[in-house]
C-alpha cells in the first residue's frame, strides 16, 4: 500500500504545488522557487521510494475503479522503464526550477511561470505512470496544453504566441489521432489496461485493425517528438523562456513520443509497417535536423534542430525491430536529456549575461565566462559523440546497430550505416559551430551587456548535468548500468539481450566510424566556415522545405478561406432563414423517421367528446390564431390573446387530473404576462399600414404560412396517432408504488420532483438562477432607444390617479397572498402545491405591490434581497442533498417522518420538504430579481433623461436590485 501512496503523491504533489504557486503574490520569487523546488524534490523522493521495490522485481500498481464496465479506471503503475522517465521528469524538473530562479527577471509574472511548470511536471508524471491507455492520452493532452501555456509564457511577444499556437495545433492534433489509435488498440485487446495490452502482442500484430491503429498512434508519437514531417513546430517553440526549453525540449515533452513508442515497442514493433514508417521518418529527421542545425545563427535554434536530429536518431533505433537497438534507444534518451538540458541552460546563461544568442555577434566568451565555457564545451562534446562522454557510448551503440541492420535486404537498411556516419559528421560540425562560434575567436565589445560569469547557483544545475555526462561517459557500467538494466528488462522481459556498457570494445568498425565522424566534422566545419561567417539567413539545398510556411498556408486556408467559403455557401446570418430551415428540417426528419412505419391512428377506443372541452378549445385555438395574426401591430392584444390560450391550457390540465400543473401554469401565466407588459414599453411604436405590401412580401408570407400549416397539421396528426395507442408500461408504476412508502408523500408529482428526481430539480433551479442573473447582468448595460426614454404618454399626469380602488385592495392582499404561498409550500408534499408554485405565488405578492404603488413607493417600504434568497435557496437545496452524505447515504437521499403539531395537524417533516424550501427560495428570488430588474429600467432611464423628476429619499434603487445595502 505505501507504493500506492508514493505513486499518487508523485503525480498529485506537482498539481497541488501548481495551485498553491498560482495563488502566491507576484513578488514572492523566493517562496515560489522554494515551493517548486521542494515539490520537484518530493516527487523525486516518491519515485525513488517506488524504485526500491522496482529494483526488487515488483511493479507497483495502484488502481481506482471509475467506470469499470467501460474499462475506464485510474491506474498508476511504475516499472523500470517508467521510473527512468519519472526520474528525468522530477530530477531535471528540480534543476530547471533552480535555474529558473536566477534566469527569470523581476518583471516576469513568477506565479504563472511556476504554476504552469509544476502543472506540466504533474501531467508528464501522469503520462509516464499511466497504466491505462485512455488515461495516458488524457495526460498526453494535458502536456500539450501546459506546454502551450509555457511556450507562450511571454504573451507580449508575437513570436511566443505564434510558436505556442503552432506547437499546440500540431501536438494536440497528433493527440487526437493518438486517442483514436488507442481506442482501436483497446478494441483489439479488449481492455485499456496497459498490462493486458503489453501481454497481447501476438493478437495485436495479427489483427486486421493493426495498421490503422499503428498509423494513428505513430501520428501522435511523431508529432509530439517533432519527427519529419511534423518537426517544424519545435524551432518555433524556442520563443519560450530558456528554462522551459531546457525542460520541455530536452527531457520531457518531446520525449513523450519516444516514451510511447518504446512503451508499445514489445507489442507493436516487429512488422514491416513499423520499420518503414519509423525508419523513413527517423532517418530523414536525423539527417535534415543535423544539416539544418549547422546553418542556424541562433544558439537556441541550433540546439532545437540538433534536438530534432537526436530524436530522429532515437526513432530510427526504435524502428530497427532489434532488442539491442531498443537498449541503445533508451540509453540515448537518457544521455540526450542530460547533455541537451545542460546546453540549453548554458545558452540561457549566455543570453542572460550578454543579451544576445546570435552566433554572428557572439565571440570570445571563453575569456569572460571561462567556467560556463568549459561546461558548455564538455556538454557539446557529449553531443558530438567525443569519447569518454556519455554521448559517445550511445552513438557507438547506434553505429553498431546501423551496421547490423545493413545485412537486411532493403535499400533503406543498406543505406543506414552511411546515413549514420553522415549524421555523425554533421553532429560534430554543428557542435563545433556552437562552441567555436560563441566561445572562441577575438573578444568582442559589441554586445548589449558586458559579459561576465552568472551567479554561482545559476551554474549549479549545469554543473550537475555535465558531471553526469562525464561520469556516465567514463564509468557507464558502474553508474547508469543498473538503472538501464532495470528499464530494459521491464520493456523486453525475458527477451532482454546481452549487451555491454563499456567505453572500450577494441578497435572495430564503429570506433573507426566515430573517428571518421570526428575528423569529417572538423573538416566540414572548416569548409563551411566562410559561408557561415557571411551571416546569411539561409539553408543551402533545402530552401523550399519550409515546414512552417506550409503549415501557415494550410492554417490560413483552413481557418480563413475555406471557412469563409463554407460560411458564404451554407450559412446565413438571418434568423428567419435559420428558423425556417430548422422547422423544415424537423418536419422532414419526422416524416423520414415515420416512413417505414406509416402514420395511421391506433386502435384504442376513443373517449367521448365533452362539449365543454370542445368549447374551451374553440376559444383557445381562436386565441392562438388571433395572437399570431395580431402580434405585429397590436402587441397588447396579442399578449392578452396569448394569456387566453394559456388559460385554456391551464383548464385542460385541471380537467385531466393535473392540479399541480394547472397551478404552476396559472402562476407562470401571471408572471409572464406582467414581464412582457413591462417589456412592451421599450418597443418602437408601430402603426398599421393597410397597403398589403408588394408581391414578394406576400409570396414570402404565403410560403411561411404553408410551412406553419404543415407543422401544425403534422403535430396534430402525430399527437392523434400517439393518443390513440396504448401507452407503454413506463416507469410511472415505480414512482406511484414507492411515492408513499419510500418518499413519504401522497402528491406523487411533488415527490418525483423533490425526491426521486431531486438531482434534476436541483439542476433546474440552478438554471433558473443563472437565467435570473443573466437577465440582471444584461440589463445593467441596457441602453434604451432614444425615443423610448421619456415618460410614456399614458403615465403623464398626476401620480396616483389611476387604479385607486384596486390599488388599495392589492395592498391589502399582500399578507393574504403571502400566506397562501406558505400554505402551498407546506402542503406540497401531500397535496397540490410545492416549492415552484409557492415561490411563484410569493413573487406575485410582491408584484402586486409594484403594480399598485409603483416602483419607488415599494422600494421605500419593502426591501427584498433577491440575490440572498437565491443563494440561500441553492445552498439549502444542495445542503439538504449533501446532508444525506453525513449519514453515509448517497447524495440526495431523503428521510421522512410526520410531526404531530396538535390542532395544526400532522406535518410531514421529510428532508425533501427542506429541499422544497430551497426550491421555493430560489424560485422566489429569481422571479423577483427578473421583475425588479426589468421594472427598474423605466425608473433608471427617466432619471437619466432630462428633466429629472425628484428622486425618492433613499437612493436604494440599484442597491435593491443587487440585493446589497
Amino acid at each position, binding site marked *: 500500500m505505501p507504493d500506492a501512496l508514493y505513486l499518487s503523491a508523485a503525480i498529485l504533489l506537482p498539481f497541488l504545488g501548481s495551485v498553491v504557486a498560482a495563488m502566491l503574490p507576484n513578488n514572492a520569487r523566493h517562496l515560489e522557487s522554494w515551493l517548486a523546488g521542494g515539490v520537484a524534490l518530493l516527487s523525486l523522493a516518491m519515485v525513488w521510494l517506488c524504485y526500491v521495490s522496482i529494483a526488487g522485481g515488483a511493479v507497483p500498481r495502484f488502481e481506482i475503479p471509475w467506470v469499470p464496465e467501460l474499462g475506464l479506471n485510474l491506474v498508476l503503475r511504475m516499472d523500470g522503464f517508467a521510473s527512468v522517465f519519472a526520474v528525468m521528469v522530477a530530477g531535471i524538473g528540480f534543476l530547471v526550477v533552480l535555474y529558473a530562479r536566477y534566469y527569470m527577471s523581476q518583471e516576469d509574472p513568477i506565479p504563472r511561470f511556476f504554476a504552469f511548470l509544476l502543472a506540466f511536471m504533474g501531467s508528464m508524471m501522469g503520462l509516464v505512470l499511466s497504466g491505462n491507455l485512455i488515461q495516458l492520452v488524457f495526460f498526453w493532452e494535458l502536456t500539450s496544453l501546459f506546454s502551450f501555456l509555457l511556450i507562450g509564457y511571454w504573451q507580449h511577444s508575437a513570436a511566443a504566441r505564434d510558436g505556442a499556437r503552432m506547437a499546440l495545433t500540431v501536438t494536440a492534433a497528433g493527440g487526437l489521432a493518438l486517442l483514436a489509435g488507442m481506442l482501436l488498440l483497446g478494441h483489439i485487446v479488449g481492455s485499456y489496461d496497459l498490462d493486458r495490452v503489453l501481454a497481447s502482442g501476438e493478437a495485436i500484430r495479427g489483427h486486421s485493425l493493426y495498421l490503422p491503429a499503428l498509423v494513428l498512434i505513430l501520428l501522435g508519437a511523431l508529432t509530439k517528438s517533432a519527427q519529419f514531417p511534423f518537426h517544424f513546430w519545435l524551432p518555433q517553440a524556442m520563443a519560450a523562456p530558456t528554462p522551459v526549453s531546457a525542460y520541455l525540449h530536452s527531457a520531457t515533452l518531446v520525449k513523450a513520443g519516444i516514451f510511447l513508442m518504446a512503451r508499445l515497442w514489445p507489442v507493436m514493433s516487429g512488422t514491416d509497417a513499423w520499420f518503414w514508417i519509423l525508419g523513413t521518418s527517423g532517418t530523414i529527421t536525423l539527417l535534415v535536423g543535423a544539416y539544418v542545425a549547422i546553418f542556424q545563427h541562433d544558439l537556441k535554434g541550433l540546439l532545437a534542430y540538433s534536438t530534432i536530429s537526436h530524436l530522429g536518431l532515437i526513432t530510427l533505433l526504435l524502428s530497427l525491430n532489434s532488442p539491442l537497438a531498443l537498449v541503445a534507444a533508451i540509453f540515448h534518451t537518457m544521455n540526450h536529456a542530460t547533455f541537451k538540458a545542460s546546453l540549453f541552460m548554458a545558452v540561457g546563461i549566455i543570453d542572460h549575461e550578454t543579451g544576445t544568442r546570435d552566433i554572428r555577434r557572439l565571440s570570445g566568451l571563453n575569456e569572460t565566462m571561462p567556467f560556463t565555457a568549459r561546461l558548455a564545451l564538455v556538454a557539446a562534446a557529449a553531443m558530438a559523440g567525443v569519447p569518454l562522454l556519455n554521448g559517445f557510448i550511445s552513438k557507438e551503440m547506434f553505429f553498431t546497430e546501423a551496421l547490423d541492420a545493413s545485412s537486411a535486404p532493403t535499400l533503406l537498411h543498406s543505406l543506414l550505416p552511411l546515413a549514420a556516419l553522415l549524421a555523425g559528421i554533421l553532429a560534430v560540425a554543428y557542435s563545433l559551430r556552437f562552441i567555436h562560434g560563441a566561445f572562441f575567436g577575438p573578444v568582442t565589445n559589441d554586445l548589449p551587456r558586458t559579459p561576465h560569469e552568472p551567479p554561482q547557483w545559476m551554474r549549479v544545475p549545469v554543473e550537475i548535468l555535465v558531471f553526469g555526462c562525464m561520469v556516465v561517459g567514463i564509468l557507464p557500467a558502474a553508474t547508469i548500468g543498473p538503472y538501464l538494466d532495470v528499464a530494459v528488462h521491464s520493456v523486453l522481459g525475458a527477451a532482454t539481450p546481452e549487451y555491454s556498457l563499456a567505453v572500450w570494445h577494441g578497435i572495430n568498425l564503429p570506433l573507426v566510424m566515430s573517428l571518421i565522424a570526428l575528423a569529417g566534422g572538423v573538416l566540414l566545419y572548416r569548409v563551411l566556415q566562410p559561408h557561415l561567417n557571411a551571416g546569411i539567413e539561409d539553408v543551402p539545398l533545402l530552401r523550399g522545405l519550409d515546414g512552417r510556411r506550409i503549415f501557415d498556408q494550410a492554417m490560413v486556408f483552413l481557418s480563413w478561406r475555406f471557412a469563409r467559403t463554407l460560411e458564404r455557401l451554407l450559412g446565413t446570418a438571418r434568423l*428567419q432563414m435559420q428558423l425556417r430551415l430548422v*422547422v423544415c428540417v424537423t418536419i422532414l426528419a419526422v416524416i423520414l423517421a415515420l416512413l417505414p412505419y406509416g402514420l395511421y391512428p391506433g386502435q384504442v377506443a*376513443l*373517449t367521448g*367528446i*365533452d362539449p365543454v*372541452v370542445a368549447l374551451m378549445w374553440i376559444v*383557445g385555438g381562436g386565441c392562438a*390564431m388571433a395572437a*399570431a395574426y395580431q*402580434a*405585429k401591430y397590436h402587441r397588447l392584444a396579442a399578449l392578452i390573446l*396569448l394569456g387566453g*390560450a*394559456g388559460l*385554456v391550457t391551464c383548464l*385542460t390540465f385541471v380537467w*385531466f*387530473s*393535473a*392540479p399541480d*400543473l394547472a397551478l404552476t401554469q396559472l402562476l407562470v401565466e401571471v408572471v*409572464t404576462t406582467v*414581464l*412582457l407588459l413591462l417589456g412592451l414599453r421599450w418597443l418602437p411604436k408601430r402603426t398599421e399600414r393597410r397597403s398589403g405590401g408588394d408581391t*414578394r412580401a406576400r409570396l414570402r408570407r404565403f410560403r411561411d404560412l404553408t*410551412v*406553419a400549416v404543415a*407543422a*401544425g*397539421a*403534422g*403535430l*396534430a*396528426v402525430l*399527437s392523434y396517432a400517439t*393518443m390513440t395507442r396504448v401507452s407503454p408500461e*413506463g416507469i*410511472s408504476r415505480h*414512482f*406511484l408504488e414507492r*411515492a*408513499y412508502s419510500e418518499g413519504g408523500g401522497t*402528491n*406523487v408529482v411533488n415527490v418525483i*420532483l423533490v425526491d426521486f428526481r431531486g438531482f434534476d430539480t436541483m439542476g*433546474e433551479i440552478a*438554471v*433558473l438562477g443563472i*437565467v*435570473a442573473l*443573466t*437577465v440582471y447582468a444584461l*440589463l445593467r448595460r441596457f*441602453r434604451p*432607444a432614444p425615443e*423610448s426614454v421619456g415618460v410614456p404618454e399614458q403615465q403623464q399626469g398626476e401620480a396616483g390617479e389611476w387604479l385607486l380602488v384596486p390599488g388599495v385592495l392589492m395592498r391589502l392582499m399582500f399578507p393574504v397572498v403571502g400566506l397562501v404561498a406558505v400554505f402551498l409550500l407546506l402542503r406540497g408534499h401531500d*397535496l*397540490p402545491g410545492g416549492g*415552484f408554485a409557492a415561490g411563484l405565488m410569493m413573487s406575485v405578492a410582491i408584484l402586486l405591490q409594484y403594480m399598485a404603488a409603483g416602483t419607488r413607493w415599494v422600494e421605500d417600504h419593502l426591501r427584498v434581497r433577491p440575490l440572498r434568497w437565491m443563494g440561500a435557496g441553492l445552498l439549502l437545496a444542495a445542503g439538504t442533498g449533501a446532508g444525506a452524505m453525513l449519514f453515509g447515504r448517497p447524495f440526495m437521499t431523503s428521510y421522512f417522518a410526520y410531526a404531530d403539531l396538535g390542532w395544526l395537524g400532522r406535518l410531514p417533516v421529510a428532508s425533501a420538504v427542506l429541499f422544497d424550501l430551497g426550491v421555493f427560495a430560489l424560485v422566489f428570488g429569481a422571479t423577483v430579481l427578473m421583475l425588479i430588474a426589468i421594472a427598474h429600467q423605466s425608473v433608471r432611464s427617466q432619471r437619466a433623461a432630462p428633466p429629472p423628476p425628484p428622486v425618492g429619499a433613499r437612493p436604494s434603487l440599484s442597491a435593491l436590485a443587487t440585493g446589497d445595502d
Partner: protein
Amino acid sequence: MELILALAIGVLGGSGVWLLMRPRTFQVIIGLSLLSYAVNLFIFSMGRFPVGRPPVLEPGTAGDPAVYADPLPQALVLTAIVIGFATTALFLVVMMAARGLTGGDHVDGRARDR
C-alpha cells in the same frame, strides 16, 4: 376527446411556428410561448387523458397505475413550464437589449431590403 386535443396541439403549434418565422422580436416571443404550450400538452398527452382519476394517493397506500393519473408526464411538464418561463424572460431581455442597441425591433437588428 383525443381529436379535440390533437387539433388543439396542432393549432397552437402551427400558430407558434408561423410567429417564429416573423421578422419582429415580439412576434418571435409570442410564437415561442405558443409553441411551448403545444409541446407541453404533447408531453402531457403521453399519460393519455384520463378523466376523473385522482392525482393524489391515499396516505399509506401504494399507487396503482390503473387507478391514478400518470405522474411522470406531469412532473416533466411542470419542469418544462418553469424552464419555459425562464427562457421567455431571457428572450424578453435580449429583445429589450437588441432594441436599445440597434434602434429597431427586427430580429436581425435591422431589416434587410430585399
